[in-house]
């Protein structure tokens, strides 16, 4: 029964979770790893979380896994003012036509996580504060700064390719 319930949960959530992970890290390979790690932790605690809020647990776990990887690999990830030139043939990175997703990768990890939770998942400020372990005021400021950074990166892209017309 336990595994069957979990399998149903996994099947219903997998695609959305993988896309969320992709929005966070901008790389399908890493998104796959984050998604798998998140579901492994949910499986481990399934007996306990299934009766409560497994989606909340999954959101929290995935977000924290992402932030942990960025904390550990801070030296490897460098925020840049301008989007880098696309590398020919680098299909694992954010696709070139997805300019907003590409711009999102130029937002700092915590602001990025805030934007994904607030904008993609429509979570309340209180829910995001609980997931990130900060105050609601911090969520608001992270969101505002994240949006500003997203816009700056987005408007640095080719105007003809933008899907949001001069959103400022």
């Amino acid at each position, binding site marked *: 029964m336990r595994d069957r319930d979990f399998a149903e949960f996994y099947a219903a959530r997998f695609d959305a979770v993988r896309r969320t992970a992709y929005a966070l890290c901008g790389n399908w390979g890493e998104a796959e790893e984050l998604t798998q790690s998140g579901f492994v932790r949910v499986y481990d605690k399934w*007996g306990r979380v299934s009766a409560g809020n497994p989606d909340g647990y999954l959101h929290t776990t995935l977000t924290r896994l992402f932030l942990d990887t960025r904390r550990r690999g801070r030296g490897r990830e460098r925020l840049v003012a301008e989007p880098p030139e696309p590398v020919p043939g680098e299909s694992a990175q954010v696709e070139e036509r997805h300019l907003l997703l590409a711009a999102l990768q130029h937002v700092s990890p915590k602001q990025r996580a805030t934007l994904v939770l607030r904008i993609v998942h429509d979570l309340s400020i209180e829910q995001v504060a609980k997931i990130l372990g900060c105050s609601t005021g911090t969520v608001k400021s992270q969101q505002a700064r994240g949006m500003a950074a997203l816009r700056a990166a987005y408007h640095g892209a080719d105007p003809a390719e933008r899907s949001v017309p001069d959103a400022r």
Partner: protein
Amino acid sequence: MRDDDHAVRHALRTELAMTTPPATGDGLADVVRLGRRRRRVRHAGAALAVAALLGVSTATAVVLTGDRAPVADVPPTATVDWPAADLPPRNAVGTFMVGPPPEPGKEGIPVHVCTPTGDGDVGYLPADRELRDAVVAAARAVAPDLKVGNLAESPKQPPLEYQAQLGDGILRFQVGDYGGDPLAAADEQAFDLANCQPPKRRVLANGAVLQVYPPMVDSKDQMLTQVLRVYLPDGTLYQVAAAGWTQRPAPQFTERQLAEVGLRIS
């Protein structure tokens, strides 16, 4: 949210929906396999706790204030008079002695160990600064003679745990959640810590349930640890633990002080 924020939201969701993820294999099978392995490792850790308990049988100057033999060295105010949860005790898989060095006619305190029914850790939710400060303030208030530091996030994860100096020991704090009724959750988790006797319990007027477990030895660091769990009515679960070294005298919370911290943050 402003109109242009809505435009960004719509565009971002559209882009995300239009991305084409690569095909994957049987991810569920891998997740289940890795999840089972993770659980086995965790349970093995619990088994190590039993071994660790046996290993402290010669520990000196460590006094348990459990629910078994009366302990002459512990002042009566050190324990709480909360009733034990109305649950049958479990059959021990092992017993160890802990306490002062054996002397003629004097023995240590027997502590019975049972197979844990759940997880000794609950932490996966972050605790904001305000909550951490409230825990520290409560600890300082109930133990003014003890040096209590500020709670900081432990670099070793999982679980997500906050730690602070507590005299010569450590104060540990974790936040998780639970589903359903607080009392039912407390019952379900009553034997999570390899304890054989049910925890002592108090139900507050606001519906929060507090239960304090008998002292055990933490499998991660071999420290003598007493745990209090607080089940808030909104589904939030706190775990406060006072840990002291087992190989030397370790001023740390008494059971009563630990319980008082729980009451102050409930």
